[in-house]
């Protein structure tokens, strides 16, 4: 008789989830599912509201990376006001870029220090009282202060560019409504004590050393844990380099062959479709040309390091070369290497912020561009967790007619399900009960994708994990919560 196992949810992952594992008659894992249990209905709610509100409202889907939604929404509306993604003034575009790299920096710092470091420092097997950032602050105060300061730096950059640390207001259709004051600029360049951009670059380099050392000691785990071949998708700059704010869509397969060759993201509907499954509110996107079965892909730091040809800042480029050399130039398909990739992007973001802070265009006064009104707009950015699509159609009276969103975590839906399946198989061969090891490792697998389940279903909550096992008749065999 087959069986099914349920796991409910994952706190340090942002959002609500539940895992069920279905066993076949022989007791082997037949299917493992990550259910996303929240639903918002944003696509319908936004209908009828003025398009001007879009960049401000839509970020309320996710307070973890609101800037990404703010900017993807603004880029879509740029098209509606006829400015298009490439028609912004230099000040407009660079202010937005600074905001975006500030966001990337704070989000990656947050992930590393608040979400990942407890597992890395204390081990996935440590007790719950220990496996959290409060314990890190107590036992490694220096590291905690560094982490908090880095996140704060990113948040202050957002404050200076977006007007608020969370749910900012500065990106407006066709541009930005403020420039960067000299006082703000100098505060970031010189700063007090450790609060300056050079320190952020130094600390980022040091953290990459930390993860590389960790990898040396734990390469068995990091290389094999939830490792599986997949396609990878992201925006890349037209020259093939990393660009997190704007570019063309590229996808490569597990061997590195280009399966989506630098296409205009405004035509994403041609290339990407989504499947719905009855058991999850989160949809399953796939590449149209390949189909549902094999057309799924990963997004996020790991995917980006697999799609880009190079990183256009020197220190991050050096790290990128080392990262690529480890897999001999082929795509890296190891889920836990996402942590390593994320930190290389942390460094890249610091370098980018430094470059932008030194750019006099940020003190320019030409803030907003104008154009001829269009009926439709698509905006795409690389959010911390991956490619984020916003698409709006607008009525003649300026109200939103239709909206479509594909958020980063949704793009990783199938990959997270695969990761869960891998862990389930590894732990449940011949065993039918839910061990703490299984629970912890499922969390570690899901967390590697840093899923922000709130924006994925356009919803969020803390995500404790409940695992249940069901047999082939649908009877509950075992159930346990973390």
């Amino acid at each position, binding site marked *: 008789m087959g069986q099914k196992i349920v796991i409910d949810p994952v706190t340090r992952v942002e959002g609500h989830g539940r895992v069920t594992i279905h066993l076949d008659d022989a007791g082997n894992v037949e299917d493992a599912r990550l259910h996303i249990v929240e639903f918002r209905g944003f696509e319908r709610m936004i209908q009828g509201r003025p398009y001007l509100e879009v960049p401000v409202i839509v970020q309320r889907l996710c307070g973890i990376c609101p800037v990404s939604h703010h900017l993807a929404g603004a880029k879509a509306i740029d098209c509606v006001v006829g400015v298009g993604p490439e028609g912004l003034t230099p000040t407009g575009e660079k202010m937005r870029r600074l905001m975006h790299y500030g966001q990337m920096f704070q989000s990656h710092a947050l992930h590393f220090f608040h979400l990942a470091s407890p597992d890395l420092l204390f081990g996935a097997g440590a007790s719950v009282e220990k496996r959290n950032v409060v314990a890190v602050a107590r036992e490694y105060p220096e590291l905690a202060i560094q982490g908090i300061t880095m996140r704060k730096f990113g948040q202050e950059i957002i404050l200076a560019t977006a007007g608020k640390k969370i749910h900012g207001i500065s990106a407006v259709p066709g541009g930005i409504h403020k420039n960067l004051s000299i006082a703000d600029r100098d505060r970031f360049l010189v700063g007090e004590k450790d609060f300056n951009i050079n320190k952020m670059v130094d600390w980022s380099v040091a953290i990459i050393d930390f993860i590389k050392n960790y990898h040396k000691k734990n390469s068995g785990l990091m290389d094999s844990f939830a490792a599986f071949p997949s396609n990878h998708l992201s925006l890349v700059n037209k020259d093939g380099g990393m660009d997190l704010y704007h570019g063309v869509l590229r996808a490569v397969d597990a061997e590195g062959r280009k399966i989506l060759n630098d296409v205009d993201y405004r035509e994403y509907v041609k290339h990407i479709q989504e499947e*719905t499954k009855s058991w*999850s509110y989160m949809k399953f996107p796939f590449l149209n040309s390949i189909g549902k079965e094999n057309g799924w892909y990963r997004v996020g730091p790991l995917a980006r390091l697999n799609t880009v040809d190079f990183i256009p800042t020197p220190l991050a480029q050096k790290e990128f070369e080392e990262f690529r050399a480890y897999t001999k130039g082929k795509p890296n398909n190891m889920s836990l290497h996402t942590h390593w990739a994320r930190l290389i992007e942390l460094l890249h973001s610091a370098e980018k912020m430094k470059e932008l802070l030194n750019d006099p265009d940020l003190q320019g006064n030409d803030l907003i561009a104008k154009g001829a009104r269009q009926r439709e707009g698509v905006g795409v950015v690389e959010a911390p967790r991956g490619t984020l699509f916003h698409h709006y159609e607008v009525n003649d009276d300026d109200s939103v007619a*239709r909206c479509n969103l594909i958020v980063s975590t949704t793009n990783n839906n199938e990959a997270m399900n695969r990761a869960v399946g891998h862990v389930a198989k590894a732990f449940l061969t011949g065993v039918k009960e839910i061990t703490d090891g299984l629970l912890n490792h499922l969390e570690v697998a899901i967390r590697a994708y840093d899923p922000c389940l709130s924006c994925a279903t356009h919803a969020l909550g803390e995500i404790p994990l409940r695992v249940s096992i069901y047999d082939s008749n649908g009877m509950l065999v075992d159930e346990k919560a973390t």
Partner: protein
Amino acid sequence: MRKKIVATTSLAGCFGCHMSILDIDLRLVDLIELVEFNRSPITDIKKISKRCDIGLIEGGICNDENYHVLKEFRENCEVLVSVGECAIMGGLPALRNNIPIRECFEEAYRNVPTSKSGGGIIPNDDELPIILDRVYPCHELVKIDYFLPGCPPRADLIWETLLALVTSGAELPYELVKYD
């Protein structure tokens, strides 16, 4: 003196209010000297394991699961605080309150341009919680003792509120308590 125990949760919210808690920055290090965290996404503790002094709620109530968590908090916390617009008034999720839920599903799973080759199923499974007819503010379902305005409330407001609750009785300056 015994440390006060604090629990926090995010219901139908965007997590921005929790991010604003983290925005107290280095005061976080002082905070963990002042209070002990129980259930919270910040500590990874997933069930309230003892009686708490202060409960902070982010987000309103949009499904049955949110409601159970809110009840768990009310039953186990001396003082319960609605943090932010969503907890106080429903916030962005409550934009759906005037729209039949069916229309929201139809739009999200059938009408969007990327659902053409996807099959057009609307999710429906025992594992999914029951979505309520509308999004409720917390105080409509349980008693709430304090309300912190803002979307999210600023970190300084959250910090001063916690200090006031921990040292019991301190007054919050009026300038601090304002929207955004």
